């Protein structure tokens, strides 16, 4: 059993769990949702072992190239889903959310992503690499949940407009509230990992806590979008559709910070 083998097993199990969840969605049989849930747990174990093996092989944190960080983001997303599912019972969101996990895993395993572990350049040799990257990605995983529940909210509202009322317990109102709660979990984690730990590390490594590097600016932009989300929601009382749209924009900004900046803009964060 080596790392890529375990990664592949995790990938297949994620697909299997999505499959179970989709069966649940169409057959309405709760036993399939349970199967999906447990399949994610087994997939996560395999995925975790794969990452631990990679850490031992490379001798450094598993977030130094796109393959590694995408793999960790999928791991965080699956973990975040289990957490939210346990807490808020949103198994109807399972199939859609697993599609995101599978998409990230597929991207990680695509031949475009170099997989070999390369030795760390001097700037990355720091325990802040662990803290900064893992905490940020973990926060972004919760934005992904808010993204999925917001889209489901919009779909649910659209159905209601057409006169169809969803028979299951996951009403539009509940989706709206779960989306908000996910932002409530994700935003503090993202702020701590992305902005605070990022500033501390930048100060230690580059001698300046803020350099207006594109990645820094984009994480600030993501933060601003969620600030708009919170203020319109809590002070101005925006709920539902408008809130959902802002949460969707927030996740897309986070995604661009993570992904787009590396490929489209260059700066201090270009390591690979």
């Amino acid at each position, binding site marked *: 059993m080596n790392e890529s083998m375990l990664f592949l097993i995790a990938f297949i199990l994620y697909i299997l769990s999505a499959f179970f969840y989709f069966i649940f969605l169409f057959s309405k049989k709760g036993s399939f949702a349970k199967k999906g849930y447990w399949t994610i747990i087994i997939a996560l174990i395999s995925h975790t072992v794969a990452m631990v093996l990679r850490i031992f092989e490379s001798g450094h944190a598993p977030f130094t190239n796109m393959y590694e960080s995408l793999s960790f983001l999928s791991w965080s997303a699956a973990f975040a889903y289990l957490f939210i599912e346990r807490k808020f019972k949103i198994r109807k969101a399972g199939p859609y959310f697993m599609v995101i996990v599978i998409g990230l895993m597929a991207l990680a395993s695509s031949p475009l992503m170099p997989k070999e572990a390369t*030795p760390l350049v001097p700037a990355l040799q720091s325990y802040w690499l662990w803290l900064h990257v893992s905490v940020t990605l973990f926060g972004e995983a919760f934005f992904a949940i808010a993204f999925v529940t917001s889209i489901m909210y919009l779909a649910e509202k659209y159905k209601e407009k057409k006169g169809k009322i969803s028979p299951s317990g996951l009403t539009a109102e509940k989706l709206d509230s779960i989306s908000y709660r996910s932002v409530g979990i994700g935003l*503090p984690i993202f702020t*701590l990992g992305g902005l605070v730990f990022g*500033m501390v590390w930048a100060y*230690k*490594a580059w001698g300046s*806590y803020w350099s207006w590097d594109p990645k820094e600016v984009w994480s600030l*932009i993501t933060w*601003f979008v969620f600030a708009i989300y919170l203020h319109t929601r809590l002070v101005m009382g925006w709920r539902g559709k408008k809130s959902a749209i802002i949460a969707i924009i927030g996740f897309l900004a986070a995604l661009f910070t993570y992904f787009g900046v590396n490929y489209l803009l260059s700066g201090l964060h270009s390591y690979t």
Partner: protein
Amino acid sequence: MKSLIKFFSSVKLAIVLLIIITSASILGTLVPQGRSAAEYAARYGQMSDLMIRIEVTRLYQSWWYIGLLLMFSMNTIVCTLMRLPPKLKKAFQPVLEFEQKKLRSLKIKDQLETNETVEHTKERVKTALFSRRYRIKESTKKSYFFIFAQKKRLGIFGSDVVHLGLLIILAGGIISGMAGFRTTLSIKEGQTLPVPNEDFSLRLDKFETEYYANGSVKDWKSTLTVIDNDKEALSKVVEVNHPLTYKGVVFYQSSYGLHWDNPLVEIHVTDKNDASISEYITLKIGDTAVFSNQRLELHAMSFIPDFVLNERNEVVTRSLEPNNPAVFIKVVKERKEIFSGWLFAKYPDFARMHSQKETGLSFNLANFKAGQYSGIQIARDPGVSLIWAGCIFLMLGFFIAFYWIPSEIRVIIEEQKGRTRIILGGSASKKTESFKQEFEKIIEFIRK
């Protein structure tokens, strides 16, 4: 003044400013920042003049971007302060009165009746609330008894703490920008340089580059010594991610490079007439080496990394890269100069022809090694401690805002036809589900 305060107290203004600042920030990541005018002209053509004039090319330092940030902080200050007094009142001086009708209209409520006396019931309700760690204030009215219980009352200040953290961070940023100082020193091994704007100096004792097995750089290490008042005050190996701090000045490993002040050269000497002579002599430029049974002296006079003759036939270097390295040597035998000339590492035959003619000896520049300098970034940033303080407030505020949820329970106890009636109503700003459960537990406790 009043209208100004009114202007800045609007949350709508905050939203508008956030949208403008966000859009401007995006623009700044699309236009490369801080490049030369020529580069902008090549990239954007006629637009470039306008872009430079409105400072899109150094957007984050432009007056209008900083102005937006200042306006936003003003907005944050006014908004936070305006909302603070009512919040303080709500948390610390709650109104000890509540109409029954209003109490009954709350979402989470219940009503009980018992045969116990009002006094007894009051104590029972208070014990129930205490057991769930509620803080209690009570008042006796004409016909009933009122209890106000609150828990985690500081929770309503979460957003204020976040705002405070942000303002501290912004203040730190302003101080960094205005009073911060940053420069880079290129320092050679053994060299001592004064630290700009400070009354101490910095010496580089040793600089080394470590490599991985595959040849990529693993680390740069500079052994630095701070010299203050002619005394060695502090010594540390500085590497990337491990800076040195002395009197508020931080020294970072930031770059490195080669210099050709006194490189090490290795010269290979052979004799056409005596095959047993084949010596490698290593010496620094400016030094003299004695060889071949003390009979010959070799002087390494000067070194050129990229040898070329200019139009006036002078020896100059074309670049700092070792593209055509050459060393000028003199060889002296019994106080008589027997050879002087340039040795080219890439053209060994050139010197051999010359030297053999005169001495039978042949000289060759076999190897050379440049000196290295270390690029040490020096920063004094008086704003940085405010930044960390602000970050702590920011995170603390987030925690309070999302996870320290205040809740309130109001109770009216009154006598009703010989029985005692208890009406309870509760509210929590968030997490109403878990508050509902707690509310039910309290009711259960009272019922027992």
